[in-house]
Each structure stands twice: as C-alpha cells, then as structure tokens.
C-alpha cells in the first residue's frame, strides 16, 4: 500500500459513517506498514468501484454446523429486514439444509444461499441484465431494471432466489427490496462496501462454521484454509466456480 493510498483510506474512514468516529480513528492510527487490520484490508474508498482484484466468498464447514441451529438464518433475516415465514411464497435468502445419505446413514447440516458463481446461470438467462455479477464476484439483482419474469429462478441450480409476492414495508435503508422483483443473498454487500469485512451469517455463527474472505488474496484466511483442506462446490458438475465452498460433504 503506497503512502498516498493509505492516506486516502484513512481520509475516507472519516468520511464514511460506518463506525463510530473514535473507533475509526483508532483503527486508522493503529495501522503500521504491512500490518493490515480487517477493516482496512477490506475498506475501499466510497468513490472507488468494486474491483476484480477481490473475489469475496465464503467457506462453510459443515462438520461444525449443528443440526437445528438456525443462528445464521436468523441473523440474515434480521440484517436484511426480511419477515421470517414458512409459506411457499416467503423469501428465504438463506436456509439450513439437512442431508442424509440413505445408503450410509451419514448426515450433514449446512446453510445454503446464493453461491455467487463466477459463471452464474441467473446472469446468463436474465433478459434485461438486471441479474449481474459485480467486479468483486458478488451476484446481485438490480431491482431498478428487474421486470419480475422469474427466469433466473428457473435457471438457478441452488434455489437461491426468491420472488417478492407481496407489498413490503419497513425495509432496512441499506437493503432496498420490494414487490414484483426477484431477490437473493447479496453477500451482505452493504456491509462489505462499508468495510465490515464479514457477513451477518458469518458473524452470527458461534461454531465458526462460516468463514468470509477474499478468495483472490492468497494471504487471506479463507484462501489458506482452501489451500490446506479439501473443499467442494455444490453441483460441481455444472462448473460454475462458486464463491461459496463447503467442507465436510
């Protein structure tokens, strides 16, 4: 990080109201060359676009994930102001899937959400380009041009997307969502952009089963773990190069 870049970073810390001013200042001052705290490593000046130098992703360790625990799901619903329901028309950005191998009896539990593919089928099929992948690998729906055709929901192999069937109220100002459009896990893009360096689900998991990080940074914990231990993509046969990877299945 050059001197000038660092300067910009610190300056922008102050400009953006994402952390209490004191904390931001402390974080800014505490940085010694070469030592990167999480928020500074991931902070991007507000006026800079997301870059393909990063690729945000998750590593989910299903051996740590507990059957019946719903902490990540609850955290997601709270963070994104989604009303939790059990109707077939209700949105679910993240869900816990319970697996049982019928031959061996092996069971597993894991959270399933948008896998933020490098080659997302939802983006391929979207007629208007509302479904798109950001430079840093986050797959999003631009609700301003989504016409609500639901073709992306037909195309998604992970059943990750939901259609908003009813009028909504009391949205989180950071997470706009409304009737007639398709939506899905945003990888907490609003948190990433303000430099939180994590997602609501990852923060909420007491078992540490969800690890957020930059797949393009060989020094990040997620990259190191992926390099050390075997992991897999769900529906790896489709070769979508997902940003969310799993261990233990």
């Amino acid at each position, binding site marked *: 990080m050059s001197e000038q870049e660092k300067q910009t970073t610190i300056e922008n810390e*102050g*400009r*953006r*109201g994402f952390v*209490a*001013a004191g904390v931001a200042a402390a974080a800014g001052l505490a940085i010694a060359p070469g030592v990167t705290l999480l928020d500074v490593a991931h902070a*991007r000046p*507000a*006026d*800079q*676009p*997301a870059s393909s130098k990063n690729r945000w992703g998750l590593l989910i360790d299903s051996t740590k994930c507990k059957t019946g625990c719903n902490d990540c799901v609850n955290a997601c619903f709270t963070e994104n102001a989604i009303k939790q329901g059990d109707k077939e028309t209700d949105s679910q950005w993240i869900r816990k899937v319970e697996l049982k191998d019928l031959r061996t009896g092996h069971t597993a539990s894991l959270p399933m959400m948008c896998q933020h593919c490098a080659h997302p089928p939802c983006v391929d099929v979207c007629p208007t380009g509302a479904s*798109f992948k*950001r*430079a*840093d690998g986050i797959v*999003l729906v*631009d*609700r*301003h041009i989504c016409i609500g055709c639901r073709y992306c929901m037909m195309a998604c192999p992970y059943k990750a997307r939901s259609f908003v069937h009813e*009028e*909504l109220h*009391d*949205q*989180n*100002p*950071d997470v*706009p*969502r*409304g*009737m*007639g*459009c398709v939506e899905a896990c945003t990888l907490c*893009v609003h948190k990433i*952009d*303000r430099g939180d360096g994590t997602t609501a689900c990852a923060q909420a998991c007491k078992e540490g089963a969800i690890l957020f990080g930059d797949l393009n940074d060989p020094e990040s914990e997620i990259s190191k773990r992926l390099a050390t231990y075997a992991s897999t993509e769900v529906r790896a046969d489709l070769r979508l190069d997902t940003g969310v990877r799993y261990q233990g299945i």
Partner: protein
Amino acid sequence: MRIPTIKTMGTWLASLAVVLAVGVSSLAIADGGAKSAKEKAMLEGVKGDKCVMPTEDMRRNHMKYLKHHRDETMHQGIRTTQFSLKGCVECHASPKNNSVIGTNDNFCQGCHAYAAVKLDCFECHSTKPKANAAFHPIAGQAPGLAADMRKDMAAAPQTNAAGAAQ
C-alpha cells in the same frame, strides 16, 4: 414519399408551438413554486440550511442525479453520499411521521403529488431514516449520513457535481 406542403408544414409548426407552450408553462409553474414561500412551508422535513446542490438545481435535476448515482452504486459499488437516496430520506423525513411519504405534507410525496409525477422509489427503498440517526435534534451535528454528506460537500462539491452531470 410526399413532399411536405405548406399546409402539412403549418400543422407541424402548430403542434411544435403547442409542445413548446406546454413545456414553457410547466417550467414557469416550477419556477413559480420555487419563489412561493407558501409552497415551501407546505412540505415538512427540511433539515439544515442547504441541500447537496442549490435548491433550484435539485428541484429540476434531482432525478438525474439520483439515477446516475443509483447505477454507480448498484453496479460498481460506489457509495459516495452526495446523491444517495438514503441521504435524501435522512434530511427530508418529516418530524411528524419520520417519513418522506405517507401524506401530501411529506417532502417527496407532497411535491410529486403536486407535479403529478409517479414516485417509484419507495416500493423498495425505506421511507424512513436509519433508526440510530432518526429524530436527531440538530441535523447538522448528527453522527450519521447527513453529517457525512456535509463533509463530502465541503470537500469536493465541484467534482461530484461534474461527475453526476455526465
């Protein structure tokens, strides 16, 4: 193809004149609105002493600024605050219902109802400021988005304006 006759050209000119007349009169209405203190008093929810751009400019161009900013934020993750819709809501939410819509006295709805322009933002966007910044007594010192916006404006109003006008 037919060569336009005097008569058809006359018709064209006449319709052009009508279009211009309508356009000019609607501008006149907008300007008149700007001057009328009564109109201003009608809308609730104005914090601080100035907006992110001169009021006249905002009145006419806020939709352009918002749309430009919306595409940058959505697709590139640029999150400058000057033309952020969240910022609009932050300053312009009514102290009565803490919202920019709901009644014709509310800032966004009031003017849009007056101008008969459909307002499509708030089917998805929150109409209320983020909880921690709401109802702050002195907007100028709020530790939220509004304060950041002021800093942004002080820092580089020219660049931002040029960027948004592209």
